[in-house]
């Protein structure tokens, strides 16, 4: 029988990974904005990452340089307002989350699908496998969708999700976060990520956030509180801009 992993064990591994990355930068290695797929402090990655290098494909005719499209038939008006999807008001701190989606050359990503999902204010997902004994909220499901507008702007009204425990190690807690899924104009620009809230004391303990070993990149996962976005007597505002990664060949495709 193995001893359960403690937060101390995981924190030490997180620190080692940061040290290795710092050494990589010192040796002149390139900045790595994304997490490594093989990041042992997040134990679920151990058997689920490829051991072989990815195969680089520079084919300008690759199908992945185009992508699916979505339109008015794929979203309904209520999808972007997570506090109006049930007869009553959900519990929790009502928030607005908005920002722009850009490609790496700074062009707005227009008319593309943004999907979110999250725990409720108590830190509980409306999911059968979430066994955290925090209350479900009959007035909150935690799923949203919208299409970006002509400036690449998305916007959601929701409640601030709670932190929740998970079983990576003993006393593991996820900082509050909203899951985001985004499409660009190319399938190769696809992104699934998580947005965090500023000043969360759990950041340092969380191997999923810390899997992004580049400090500046990790900071980009944290939204900014924006008082101008707060609505009097209604909601607090957070701004979170998103830049989709992707192959340079997609820059050739104008429009969309």
């Amino acid at each position: 029988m193995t001893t359960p992993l403690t937060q101390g064990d995981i924190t030490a591994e997180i620190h080692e990974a940061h040290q290795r990355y710092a050494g990589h930068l010192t040796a002149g290695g390139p900045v790595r904005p994304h997490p490594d797929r093989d990041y042992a402090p997040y134990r679920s990655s151990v058997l689920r990452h490829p051991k072989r290098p990815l195969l680089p494909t520079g084919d300008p005719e690759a199908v992945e340089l185009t992508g699916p499209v979505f339109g008015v038939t794929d979203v309904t008006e209520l999808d972007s307002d997570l506090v109006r999807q049930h007869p009553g008001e959900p519990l929790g701190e009502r928030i607005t989350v908005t920002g722009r989606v850009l490609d790496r050359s700074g062009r707005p990503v227009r008319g593309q699908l943004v999907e979110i999902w999250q725990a409720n204010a108590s830190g509980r997902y409306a999911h059968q496998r979430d066994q955290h004994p925090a209350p479900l909220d009959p007035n909150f499901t935690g799923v949203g969708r919208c299409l970006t507008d002509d400036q690449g702007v998305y916007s959601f009204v929701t409640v601030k999700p709670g932190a929740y425990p998970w079983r990576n190690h003993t006393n593991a807690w996820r900082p509050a976060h909203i899951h985001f899924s985004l499409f660009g104009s190319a399938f190769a620009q696809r992104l699934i990520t998580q947005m965090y809230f500023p000043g969360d004391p759990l950041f340092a303990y969380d191997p999923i956030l810390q899997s992004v070993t580049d400090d500046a990149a990790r900071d980009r996962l944290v939204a900014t509180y924006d008082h101008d976005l707060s609505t009097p007597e209604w909601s607090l505002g957070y701004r979170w801009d998103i830049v989709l990664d992707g192959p340079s060949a997609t820059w050739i495709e104008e429009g969309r």
Partner: protein
Amino acid sequence: MSRPTLPGPRADLAPTPSQTVGPFYGYALPFLGGGDIAPAGHPETVTLHGYVLDGAGTPVPDAVIEVWQPAPDGSRDGAPGSMRRDPVDGAFIGRNGLVFTGFGRVDTDADGHFAVRTLPPGGVPYVSLAVFARGLLHHLYTRAYLHDASGLTTDPLLAALPAERRATLVTTPERAGVHRFDIRLQGDAPHEETVFLDFG
């Protein structure tokens, strides 16, 4: 004719990092008819199915597979309507049975199995797949090359691979119109790891 000058990546615009899809996407991402890319009853429908497996050979019951491909006529424009909704109650109502959107999304079952029904792509011998899962901090791209597609033997990506690596990208025939495609996230001796692609 000169090519328009296009903006390259801007140094001040660094990409937003990827994060895992986690275990709880199930009530958000999958949608009714997500695997029914082919219009219902279309005579040329092919089924693409398989298991997602980890480095111990254990099926992965919480993966999401997305499919993107050209229409049979070779069009890569796609079309809205993959996630068609009922404006009355917001429910997913499936595709309209006419339009080929080129996009599908399914999650794996409790036994790690996935299946989509689609039409053979025009112009290329493959459908493109993206794989997301708990434990995958950054999604993976691969391709399912249909074993009976024309152009298979001249495909440059396949041609550049050694035989055992190439085999991981080509579907296995089962009965007529049924293609088996297992995805091994990590090699599990003697099984070869699936080839995953990097588009830069």
